[in-house]
Structures are given as C-alpha cells and as structure tokens.
C-alpha cells in the first residue's frame, strides 16, 4: 500500500508543478490551433497509468514517449526497424538486434544495448507486460553498446516479432533506480522520460497533452519530422461528444466508433475516413459469434454449423453498421492475411459457410434437431427443449443490434435463442471467462504481426476455470490444433529466408483452417473497423486509399499505434 500512495503523492506534486511551470511553455496555457493535433478515441480509462512496462498505459506512452525496436507494417506484413537498425536470427535460437547509433533519451543520456537488456530482463517481474516471455526467452546478452543478442529456450519467431514491435524500451538509468518489484506499480507522470518524438506536457482527467521533443533521433536517422508541436488526446467520454467535436474541427483524428459519420453533410468535405466509400474503415479485428464448446448443445459441431448458415451477416453490416464494416471471411482471417494469400480457397470451398437458412434447416433436421412437440422450437436430438443463452453487453448498441439480427435469424430456422443483455464489465466478462453462456460475441482476433495469434486465440490450452487472458473463451480442447498452433508460432511469416519453413507454414495454416471450419470452432461474422475519422481543416495529408496520400493505419489505439499510427503523425501537414 505504501508504495502506491508514495507514487500517488509524487504524482500530485508534479501535478501542481505542472500548473505553474509547464503551462508557461505552452504559450500561457493555450495551444495554438495550427500547431496542435487533437486526437481521441483511444483512452477508455483516465490518463493515470504512465508506466510503459505494464498493460493499459495511457495513450501515446507507447510510440510518442517510449519507443519500440521495430514497427509493423500491415500492408506488407513485415517488421520495419525503428530503434533497431536491423534484427535477424543469427542462429536457430539466437536473435540479434543492432541498435541505431546516437539515439538519446529525453534527458540527454544515450540509449544503449544496456537499456534493451534492462527492459527485457524485467520480464520475470510479476505484472510486467508479456508475462510468459520468461518461459521461452532464456537470456539477453549485451554484445556491445549497440548490439544485443537474445538467447531462446524456445525460439517462437512469430511471437517474438510481436514482442519486438510491442515492447517499449525503457531507460535503465531512471527505472533502474527503482526496486524491481515496484516497477509495475509505478504510474505517475514523473516516469515519462523516453526516447520518442514527444514529451509529456500535462494531463487532467479528460485529456493528455504532449509537446514535441525537438532532438528526436528519427529526424536525423530517417528524415522524419513531426509537424505538430502539440498533441492533445481526449478521453472517451461519449460518442456524441466525439461526433460534434470531429464535425466542428475540435478533433483532427478521431478513433471513436461513430456510426453515421459517412452520412453527415461534412463527410467528404472536411471529414474523411480511410476509404471514401464502403467499407470506409480499415479492419481491426474479427468479430465472431462464440459458441460454448463446453456446454450442451453448443458442443455439437453440427449445431454450430447450422448456426453459421443461418446468420445474415449482410443485414448486420448494412443496418447495424450502415456499411462501415466488412463481412468477415469464413476463416476469420483479417484482410491483411487474405492479401498475403494465406487463405486456402479449396478448404473454404469445401467447409465454408454463407447465409443459407435452408441449408441450416437441412443440417439441423439431419442432426436430429427437430421440433417434435410442435411448440415452434427445435429440440435437441435427445428431445430436450433447447434455449440458447446469448449474452450481449448492454449499451454496446452495435452489438445489441447485431444480436437482435441473429436472434431473428435463429428464430427463423426454429432455434430458440434468448438475448441476455448484461453489464459489460460486471457480468459479461466474468461469465464469458468462466464459460457461463451458450453464445457470446467476441472480437479478440486482433490485428497483429502474425497468424499464430489468431490460432492462439482459437486453440490455446489448457482450458482454465477462468479463461481470463481472453484466449479460447469458447473452451475448445483440440490438442492437435494446439500443437500446430505452437509450431506455427515458431515460424516467421512467409516469405522468410527458409523456403522449408515457409512451406511448413502454409501447410499448418491450411490444416488449421480446415480444422477450424470443419469443427466450426467459432463463427466469424464481420471485421470491426479500425474506426478512424479525420478532419482535414487544420491538418492534411492524412492516410487514405488515395495514392497521393500515405496509407498508414491511422489510429491512436495503444495496441495498434506501432502498426502505422505513429507513422501517420510523421506525414501530416498543416493545411493551407
């Protein structure tokens, strides 16, 4: 307890100091509109966690304040060097990173291999990000000031790439002073000395403000410059506020979910999305209907298959989302992987599904789900009444709408489903984690660097009482698939230097697709968008599908920021 309160106390002091000193630097507390980019949509809590070593840090802690060794470009599906100049597997189980020369921390100290080692050595401290890294990373070796070698007990190349663009490097000279065990508990903004393009300026409940760090290494090394002197990020208060802000040019970049944005008069004038027509947004994750494999009757693949055929996803996309999302591929793969050609068309041809209620009824009839007692609802093959409990987070209007469409669809084929609108945090999460449901929505198949993540999500074992890390909420137990998944994680995304590996990769991916579709593990429905709207009245050159503009993923979401969000800020230009 003491430690935390200490930190809090420190935070307070800084808070007060900030009001007097720092504010002056911002031109007497005001941020000139033409020098400031306003963003919003990433912060769901409050700006309290400034610790890059833990999950859930404030927006821009990753990327602006602290930086990673690489970033990931989803268009090309490959890592691009950032703090690192290069990185490669020099042995089967050794990965070597070469740092760029001359990178300094905001306080002027050099960023060296020691800092990298320090950062990764924190992996065994409870509460630090990547809790399982310790299980397969053996040792971090400093070769020289700019060279680090990572020795693996289990070289999971795919998973490692994920760490490389996700883990912020922190300075040893500040964090090293702290007791290691206390590091996860640090949170105040006194720990914001990083290497990035922006420095912490100030924050309050509703917004965080950053000011450009003018000696940023990337200017020299990569010729990148941040046009905006200030970045101010708003907390998620309500869609309504965000909507009016983006329309009134009080926000430059909004990463809120704003259905209807494509219908406002300003759309196409000052307000834009990545695509100027459907689906308007890039895809961020796959929203799926999750059947519970651990409960009857959803443990029956035939039933799951029938459900898949009975859902009219187009209706959800058109009415629930007004066309701002795209229907998902039956494999659940994000467009990025489809573009990479990882979809096995033959498998999908044979085992895929589409909206076809008649087919659904046929499957149900065949599997013995028939309405014997004539109450209009089908019973299970055992003749028991069937009522599927579909938990839906209340207040998430798009999902509520989608659930209602599914309810209608299932009713149409005689399957009785009951919508159970529950509080998202209080009831839904615990029930999903503990498997207390028949059907639930989930969208944790995220935009990441490697397909292994998708299959981790689908097959991770063992199934615990509480599936708290959000993988495998459907509780499928398929040892074979899990082994394939783990093998997949050891392979880099093709093309790599090793054609055998690439071939194996394709084999595994095909097989996993087949298992997944055959067993109908989950029912992928649509891709949730990488919600993003810009107002180009003050800043232009935002990413879009127009060839004249950059095409980075324009988001400020912490987990996706190193997928192009950061690069977006290097490209924008003042309007006029």
């Amino acid at each position, binding site marked *: *307890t003491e430690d*935390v*309160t200490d*930190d*809090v106390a420190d*935070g*307070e002091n800084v808070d007060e100091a900030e*009001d007097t000193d720092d*504010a002056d630097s*911002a031109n*007497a*507390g*005001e*941020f*000139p*509109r033409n020098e*400031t980019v*306003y963003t919003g949509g990433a912060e769901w*809590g*409050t700006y*309290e*966690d400034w610790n890059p070593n833990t*999950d859930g840090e404030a927006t821009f802690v990753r990327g602006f304040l602290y930086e990673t060794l690489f970033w990931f470009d989803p268009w090309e599906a490959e890592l691009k060097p950032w703090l690192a100049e290069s990185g490669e597997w020099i042995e089967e189980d050794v990965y070597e990173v070469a740092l760029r020369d001359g990178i300094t921390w905001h306080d002027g100290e050099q960023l060296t291999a020691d800092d990298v080692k320090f950062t990764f050595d924190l992996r065994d401290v*409870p509460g630090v990000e990547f*809790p*399982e890294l310790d299980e397969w990373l053996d040792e971090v070796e400093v070769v020289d000031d700019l060279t680090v070698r990572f020795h693996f007990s289990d070289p999971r190349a795919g998973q490692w790439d994920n760490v490389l663009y996700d883990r912020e490097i922190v300075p040893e000279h500040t964090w090293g002073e702290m007791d290691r065990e206390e590091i996860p*508990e640090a*949170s105040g903004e006194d720990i914001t000395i990083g290497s990035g393009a922006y420095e912490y300026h*100030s924050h*309050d*409940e*509703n*917004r965080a*403000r950053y000011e450009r760090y003018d000696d940023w290494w990337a200017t020299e090394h990569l010729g990148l410059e941040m046009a905006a002197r200030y970045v*101010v990020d*708003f907390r998620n*208060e*309500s869609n*309504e*506020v965000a909507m*009016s*802000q983006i329309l009134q040019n*009080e926000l430059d970049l909004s990463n809120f979910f704003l259905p209807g944005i494509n219908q406002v008069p300003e759309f196409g004038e000052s307000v834009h999305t990545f695509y100027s027509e459907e689906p308007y947004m890039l895809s961020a994750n796959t929203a799926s209907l999750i059947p519970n494999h651990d409960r009857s009757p959803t443990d029956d693949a035939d039933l799951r298959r029938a459900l898949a055929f009975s859902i009219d996803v187009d209706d959800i996309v058109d009415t629930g989302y007004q066309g701002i999302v795209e229907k998902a591929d039956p494999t659940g793969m994000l467009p990025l992987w489809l573009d990479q050609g990882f979809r096995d068309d033959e498998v999908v041809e044979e085992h895929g599904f589409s909206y076809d209620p008649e087919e659904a009824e046929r499957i149900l009839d065949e599997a013995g789900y028939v309405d014997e007692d004539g109450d209009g609802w089908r019973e299970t093959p055992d003749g028991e009444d069937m009522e599927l409990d579909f938990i839906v987070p209340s*207040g998430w209007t798009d999902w509520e709408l989608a659930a209602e469409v599914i309810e209608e669809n299932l009713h149409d084929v005689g399957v009785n489903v009951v919508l159970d609108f529950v*509080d998202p*945090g*209080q*009831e839904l*999460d*615990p029930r999903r*984690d503990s498997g207390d449901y028949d059907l639930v929505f989930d969208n944790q198949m995220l935009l990441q660097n490697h397909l292994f993540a998708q299959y981790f999500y689908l097959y991770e074992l063992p199934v*615990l009482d*509480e599936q*708290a*890390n*959000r993988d495998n909420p459907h509780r499928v137990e398929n040892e074979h698939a899990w082994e394939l998944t783990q093998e997949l994680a050891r392979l880099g995304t093709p093309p790599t230097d090793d054609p055998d590996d690439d071939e194996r990769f394709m084999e595994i991916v095909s097989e996993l697709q087949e298992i997944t579709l055959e067993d109908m593990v989950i029912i992928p429905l649509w891709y949730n968008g990488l919600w993003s709207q810009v107002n180009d009245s003050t800043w232009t050159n935002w990413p879009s599908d127009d060839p004249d503009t950059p095409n980075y993923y324009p988001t400020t979401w912490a987990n996706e920021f190193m997928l192009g969000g950061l690069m977006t800020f290097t490209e924008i230009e003042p309007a006029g």
Partner: protein
Amino acid sequence: MGRYLGRKGLIYALTLFVAVTINWMLPRFMPGDPISDMVSRAGLRDPEAAARMQAYYENLFGLDVPIWQQYLNYWGSLFSWPPDLGISMWSFPRPVGDLVMGALPYTLALLIPAILLSWYVGNKLGALAARRKALDNTVLPVSYLLTATPYMWLAILLVWFGGMQLGWFPSSRAYSGNLVPEFSMSFIGSLALHWVLPFLSLFLVALGGWAIGMRNLVIYELESDYSNYLGALGAPPRLIRKYAFRNAMLPQITGLALQLGVVLTGNIVTEVVFNYPGLGLLLLNAITSTDFFLLQGIVLFVVIGVLICNFVIDIVYVWVDPRTRTGLQGASA
C-alpha cells in the same frame, strides 16, 4: 430554539449514520465482487498471480480484515484528516478524494448559482405573477411547462439549439480543449462560455417550480387572516403584499432544502448531456466502470453535502421565523 436545532441535529446524525452504513454495505453485500472483477480484468493467465493480485488489492482496499473491523475502519478513515475515501479503480491509483475534489468545483459552479438564482428569480416572478393578472397568464403556463420539462430534455434542446444550430455556446466539457487550467483570461472566458448552457438547463427547470410555488403561496397568504385584517384597516396593497411575500418565503426556504435532491438529479443528467466534468459525470463514470470505491466516495460526499445544506437552511429558518425561536406554543400568557 435549542430543542428545535437539537432535534434536527439528531435527525441529521441518524441520517448520516444510516447513509454511511448503507454506503459501506452496498459493495460488500450486493451481488458481484469488485475485487474479482478487477483481477479478472487484468487478464492474468497464472492462477497464482491472480491470487497474489487479489490479495494485494484486498489489502489495498482494506478488505482483508474482519467485517466489523472494516466497518470501524471505514468510520475511522472518514474522520481522519484529510478523509480517506479509498482509491479509485476507474482511475487507478488515484485517491477517490482527489477525484471528487477535482470534480467538485465544477458541480458547485453549476449548482450554487443555479439553485440560488432560480430560487431568487423564481420567487420574484411568482410574487409578480400573483399580483398582475396579465403576468399571471404568461408566467404560470410557462412555469408549468418549464417545471414539467425533464432536465435532460432541456439540456439536449439547449445543446442542439444553442450549441449546434446557433453555435453560440460550446456544448460539451467545461473548457475548451486547447487550454490548460490556469488563472488566465482566456481560460476563465472559456470556462464561462462553457458554463452557460448547462447552467441554463438547471436554472430554467428549477425556476418554473419556484415561480409556481411562490405565486400560489402568495395568493394563499393574501387570503390569510392577517392580510384580511390589514385590508380591513385600510393598509395599502403594497404593505399587504410585502407581508404576504415575507410569509410565503418561509415555506420556500424549507422547500429549498427539499429541492436540493431534485436539483442534484438534474445536475447529474445535465453533466452527462454536456459532458461537464463534475460529480454527476464522475458518478456515472464510476457506475459504468463499476468503480465501487469511487461510487461510495461520491455518494458519501453528496450525502454529507446535502446534510450540511439542510442544516444551514434550518439555521437560516430559525433566523427568519420567530416561531421556531420561541417554542411552539405561546410561551407566557
């Protein structure tokens, strides 16, 4: 008078006791376990780590001692200085007291002027209406309309009309996004501009109620025995109205205490509509993020605030109404 205040004091003390106790009980005895929720949200894979975290939080929030001791500690922490309201989960690890104190000025800035001005203007209007038929025919219907208007609707209309259509006033937050709180003209100007619409929505609805109440009370007082007597002795209407007004004020003062809760309600929804960073919005954030400690802190604060206001009003009442000072029956024959 001593007895009167003594009795009031007893009621307040009991109310405080009940409120604090209920407040303490809610997160402990209601369905759902806030700590487990928090742990499960952290998404720990390792059950042991989860257990450690659970223990850590239980210790942090003082839930690892026997229940009676938690209760005593709760009282103890309230009476320590500064009062320790625990730590927020929504804005972990900020102390609840900090958050409440941060939001309080905004709420007060809305509530105090809204309550006092609506009371004052409403009473004046009501008294005027009681006097002139023409005014009565306009003030009364408008007042009924206003008082029947739900706060949130008026707020929405104001946002739409004043904020969006006319664009005269900003329609969300307490100050413009390009400012940092500080003592400067631009900041204060921005505060003032953002304050107008939420203030208006509170002010207008409350205004109607006061005006109607005052009008009716004045009419009632004008028919009272002392008014009749004055009239029979040829006192000018001005004097009679003055007396009636003064007497009618008394129930309106008591009404002020009773209306506190109502205006508070209005304040919550108004803050929600305008995204005004006061206690109401904080309360809703606490609820949506199931931050029980924050919720407790706010409720406690509000309850104590209301109690204090009630007490102040009681004292004012004693001061304006001689009857409370001299005991109830005529003292000496």
